[in-house]
């Protein structure tokens, strides 16, 4: 079964859909076991996520976060590095965004502040990726391990900073002061409102535009520039890259810096766009989910957009389940796990039957192939 006979859209579109259907079927059984009618559950989730501008707002808000963390993972993947540190990098990125907003919010016009917070978020995220990158480049340390460690370290560091440094005196909860309103990224419902379009309030904010810009940027960077070329060359064949005069050290570090930068942008959405303050554990597993997003999206920005939307749906629709049925909301984590299992780990399982079915339907199926499979 070669590429020549099976058109691309089968493996890019049909197979992922089949995978998701499989995950949905297994989820259905889990729901049944937990005394929830799966059909009701799905329609509740779908309505909750897409049934109103409120639902859409939340879904797209989560989608924005996943685009950033998913792109971060994908860029590193192209350089064949597994950056599990999105969690920590996003957290530290929040520090950068937060500091800019805290100290300059209200003092600097928004249009000047925004580029600064973008730079700060990206820079801080990149910085947090730098040490693992440097160690990988110069000492051959395992990025998976170092980035996991850096997630833990980021959590401790942020806890320290929040508790000891950034928390306003007398405040009980571990979070910074709320930023000056002038530093907030406008919400989409507000912007829409000013154009006379009525939308329900939701945390969806204009950082989604930056997420889309970043997607385009990643596409162009990876496939259209010489730096992207070098990253891919290194990722696919490091010794060929060395032969070509590509400095592996520099490329490893560049890749990880960009990856960390993208993760750092996460904070624009969550911190500057919605929470308007730095809080403890604000990333909350979304960095990890980015791995699933990147894998499902096959490390391509377009795929990542769709995968982010899917996970946005799971997050938002899942939250709605709890309102309607009082279901333990952690069931959503099960759904996520199943989606990753079927469309990531078991992606090849459906591939062959689907390709065979395609061949059969198009009449290209013959006996030899059947035996050869």
């Amino acid at each position, binding site marked *: 079964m070669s590429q020549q006979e099976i058109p691309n859209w089968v493996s890019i579109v049909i197979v992922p859909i089949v995978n998701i259907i499989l995950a949905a079927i297994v989820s259905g059984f889990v729901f049944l076991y937990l005394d929830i009618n799966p059909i009701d559950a799905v329609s509740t989730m779908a309505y909750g996520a897409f049934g109103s501008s409120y639902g859409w707002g939340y879904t797209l808000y989560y989608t924005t976060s996943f685009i950033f963390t998913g792109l971060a993972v994908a860029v590193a993947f192209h350089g064949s590095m597994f950056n599990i540190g999105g969690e920590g990098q996003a957290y530290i990125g929040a520090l950068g965004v937060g500091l800019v907003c805290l100290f300059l919010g209200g003092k600097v016009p928004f249009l000047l502040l925004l580029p600064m917070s973008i730079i700060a978020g990206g820079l801080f995220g990149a910085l947090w990726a730098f040490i693992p990158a440097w*160690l990988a480049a110069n000492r051959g340390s395992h990025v998976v391990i170092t980035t*996991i460690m850096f997630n833990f370290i980021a959590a401790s560091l942020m806890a320290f900073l929040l508790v000891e440094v950034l928390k306003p005196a007398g405040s009980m909860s571990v979070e910074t002061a709320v930023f000056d309103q002038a530093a907030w990224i406008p919400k989409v419902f507000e912007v829409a409102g000013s154009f006379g379009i009525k939308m329900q309030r939701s945390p969806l904010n204009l950082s989604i535009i930056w997420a889309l810009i970043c997607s385009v940027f990643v596409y162009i960077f990876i496939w259209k520039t010489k730096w992207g070329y070098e990253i891919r060359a290194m990722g696919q064949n490091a010794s060929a890259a060395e032969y070509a005069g590509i400095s592996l050290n520099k490329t490893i570090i560049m890749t990880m810096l960009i990856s960390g930068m993208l993760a750092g942008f996460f904070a624009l959405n969550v911190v500057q766009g919605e929470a308007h303050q730095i809080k403890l554990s604000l990333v909350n597993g979304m960095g990890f989910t980015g791995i699933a997003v990147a894998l499902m999206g096959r490390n391509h920005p377009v795929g990542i957009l769709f995968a982010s939307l899917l996970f946005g749906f799971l997050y938002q629709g899942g939250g709605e389940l709890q309102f309607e049925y009082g279901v333990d909301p952690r069931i959503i984590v099960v759904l996520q*796990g199943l989606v990753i*299992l079927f469309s990531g780990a*078991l992606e*090849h399982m459906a591939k062959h039957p689907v390709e065979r079915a395609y061949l059969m339907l198009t009449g290209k199926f013959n006996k030899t192939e059947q035996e050869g499979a």
Partner: protein
Amino acid sequence: MEYFQTVILILDATLRVATPLIFAALAGLFSERSGVVDIGLEGKILASAFAGAAAAYVFNSPWMGLIVGVLVSVSLAMLHGFATVTHRGDQVVSGMAINILAMGLTASLGNFWFHQGGNTPNLVNALENIDARFTTIVFPFAEQLKDVPIIGGIYSELLSGHFLLVYLALAAVPLSWFVLFKTRFGLRLRAVGENPTAVDTAGISVVGMRYMALAICGALAGLAGVYLSVAVTAQFLPNMSAGKGYMALAALIFGKWRPRGALLACLMFGILQAIADRSQGAMIGSVEIPVQLIEALPYILTVVLLGGFIGTAIAPKAIGRPYVKERE
């Protein structure tokens, strides 16, 4: 004497803290030596901790907890095998999926069964006549020797009075070494992690070897989970594995994929944790060390050691790559 006592107590705690890490690191050792990356240790620990506690409660027996916990962990390992060995899926992704699944399923099922927000009921409960927790093993004469200087500390305090699983973890280290390096099974397992094609041409089933390695991995990871819930806390709590699977992986790499090395790394993490637990409010000069720094110390140290001292550990050569005979 005071000083000696402190050291003994820290070492005593070290053993307790290191036990799940040792089990998990050995679990990872079997899996990775056969060429399968297992980032899903975390999920297996969590799932077996849950299943162990639930079964122990339901059957009112720690041993049933142990059996069920291990079985559940082995099933997850088989799922990993099904995805990565049979269907050649990405090993890291499969591990992540297992971690996330375990996180969600333990909480949802726990809540559904016991209505305590994902917790299992306490395994020691005089009211319900439940006593399903492992008891500690006190060595003979430990009481009598308690006050003998030095020996009392070492024998009665440090060596005696742990859960059976603690001793089992320590015994599992030489046992794993023996299995891996002195038996036919171990030879084949190591070979399959280095060069599966060669193993295949030697007439040995690569798939079979990897499944067996994963089964052992599952069983050991299961013991780690059961230790946490059925022995230490006598209850399951959501997310109680708290990163131990990842630390065990780090220990494995530290230990250069060898049982003794992994043991030492686990003990090092254990001792750091034990010291951290005891050094709150510790001062450097007149400045109090932030707790967060002490907490982060094991992780910082891991990074420093990985980057600075141990150099590049040589992983099994075929690790992470699914065995593919025919390119498509």
